[in-house]
């Protein structure tokens, strides 16, 4: 890496995208750090972050659900999908649940309008949804998480025992 090369202002968005890719969101600390790096006031970085919908200021859940509210999906039933998800997860558009497991966000066109209505969970697309299919999908994630959680717990317990570390 060349130390002397000044960062180019036009790379600011790219840098923020990289930050979000690794951290999942843009923290206060990241704003300060990137501002220093680009030699601009933090408020300017904050301004760019708040302008673009891609940038998130709160950490997303382990499973990030994007609900397509593009034109095709909206017409075919996205508003109901959002309601059903809100009921099933106890969170609203733009929120992350208490356990940091699920987060939900409505977005414009996921680009698979022929499968409307569509959601994506961590990038995997689920299309032609009705209430039954939607709730089944969510149940499967929850179930996988439950069994996962249990095995994780036993695992960490046995690690603790092995190393003799106390909780």
């Amino acid at each position, binding site marked *: 890496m060349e130390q002397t090369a000044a960062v*180019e*202002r*036009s*790379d*600011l*968005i*790219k840098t*923020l*995208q990289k930050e979000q890719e690794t951290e999942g969101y843009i923290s206060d600390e990241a704003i300060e750090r990137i501002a220093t790096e680009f030699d601009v006031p933090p408020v300017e970085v904050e*301004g*760019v972050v708040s*302008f*673009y*919908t*891609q*940038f998130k200021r709160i950490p997303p859940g382990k499973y990030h659900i994007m609900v397509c*509210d*593009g*034109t*095709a999906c*909206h*017409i*075919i039933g996205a508003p*109901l999908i959002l*309601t*059903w998800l809100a*009921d099933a997860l106890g969170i609203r558009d733009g929120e992350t649940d208490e356990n940091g497991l699920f987060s939900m966000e409505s*977005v*414009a*066109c*996921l*680009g*698979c*309008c*022929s*499968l*409307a209505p*569509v959601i994506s969970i961590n990038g995997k*697309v689920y*299309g032609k949804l*009705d*209430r*039954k299919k939607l709730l089944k999908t969510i149940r499967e994630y929850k179930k996988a998480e439950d069994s996962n959680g249990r095995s994780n717990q036993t695992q960490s317990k046995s690690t603790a025992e092995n190393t003799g570390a106390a909780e």
Partner: protein
Amino acid sequence: MVTRIKVGTASCGIAAGAGEVLQLLRKTAEQHGTLSDVPIVEVGCIGHCYAEPLVEVETDSGRYFYEKVEPKQDQLRRILNLEEQGRFRPNEARAQKERTSIMALAGRIEPTSLEEYRGHGGYEALAAAHEMAPEKLVEEVKESRLRGRGGGGFPTGLKWRFLAGKESDNKVLICNADEGDPGAFMDRTLMESLPHLVLEGMLIGAKATGARRLFIYCRAEYPRAVKNLNTAIEQIRAAELNVIDGHAVDIRVKEGAGAFVCGEETGLIHSLEGRRGTPRYRPPYPTDYGFHGAPTAINNVETFANIPQIVRYGASAFTKTGTENSTGTKLFALAGDLQYSGLVEVPMGLSIGEVVFDIGGAERGGVKAVQIGGPSGGCIPAEHFDTPIDYDSLSSLGAIMGSGGLIVIGTNRCMVETARYFLEFTTRESCGKCTFCRVGTKRMLETLERITGGEGSAADIERLGDLGTKIKQGSLCGLGQTAPNPVLSTLRYFNDEYQSHVEEGFCPALECKALVDIFIDPDQCNGCKLCIKACPVNCISEDFVVDNAVCTRCNSCIEVCRQNAISRVAKGGAVRVAS
């Protein structure tokens, strides 16, 4: 004998499960013995998105298509054995009416195989362009009467002449791949399926205008497009195809970060510079003062994709397709209430009805309108479906050509709600710089919400028209100048629906929550209690009466009822029906 197998893995294919199909197909072929050496490759999208995942088997005696392929070994084995079942036949009407020129190779070749693209005549237009004087190239594009496909319809040749006329060795040419219309995917499909076609168009543009820096500003939500473009750019660099007049032009993909307004030229430039993508007043136009002050021209993805054929076959061949003022073909992303959603390329001048019914397979009599042009466009009612699709006809109806999103709206949808949806979108996406757009769209949205909420008045309808006209006149950029279109066009063609909302408190489509009740028909109900269990707010009593004051109209009960006993009725209708 099977020579090659192709799996469509553009975004539409992947969403439908093409990834799993590809994986299993590779495994199945390996186990098959005689097929283990047959290449199984990924291709783009042929436009028939409704039939994804699509698999094409090339043999020495012909090609076979299979639609809706599932990742199941026995099914895949049958495909590999070329058994008839599952053979895909596109609808005849579509085959007759569509005209694939820019999409000709989409889904047929490997997107990131420079060799295959060249094998089909790729980069021959660029080679021809090298032999031509820049003025001649610009002239050819002007004579083709190609108009920008990004929405505005500005003559491309004229824009290029402006840029070519600037004295500067720092000129910039930008491909607008922001595709912000939330129901459009033409540009994504082109970039995913034929990145080299777009790049060839841009390189010809560089030769014609003297631009030395090329950018593709791509929506961040399009990772596959970005990946394919970047691979293709590496390939042309390695093959030195980017050398123009002895000078290697710089080509880069820059990702947007989610903002509709960044599709606007000056907003886009600000975003490229790493700032908030707020548009500014024009003039100065980008050709005078663009990216970091350098002379800049911006064209849409599809516009660039049209360039190679113009150079290769000449402007006169190009103008044979389409109408006098709208030459060539246009890509449309069809979605909504129709059978065959996907991407289609048609000659300009085809009627809306031909696209909706013949190509899209929508049910005659089941369609109320089409929405063309997304948040900047308008709704065209079914009685105008014989209108030809060209820039001027669509404008005269209060819609716009737009970039090519075409949503079919069935008779069971509410037009006021549709207008509200688009206004909500533009209100959210307004950058906030000018008052007409920032405050005006907000006031319009509030008015629409009053109407869909059952609290609107006749004065509200009047106010919408008035405010809409003022926002169009007073806004700084194209976002505000076009934002009222979905409302104004529905006011014009579906005024009765607005009237019925405010005068009778009745939503004819039974879509607006505040104007409907949920009613359980005791004659149909068999007492299974599924609805009671499904209701998230416990508003259904043990004797199956819905407390509509508590009900959120989430439709959960309607969805679970196996007797079709539950329905939405006009507010107060339950009482009417019950008595």
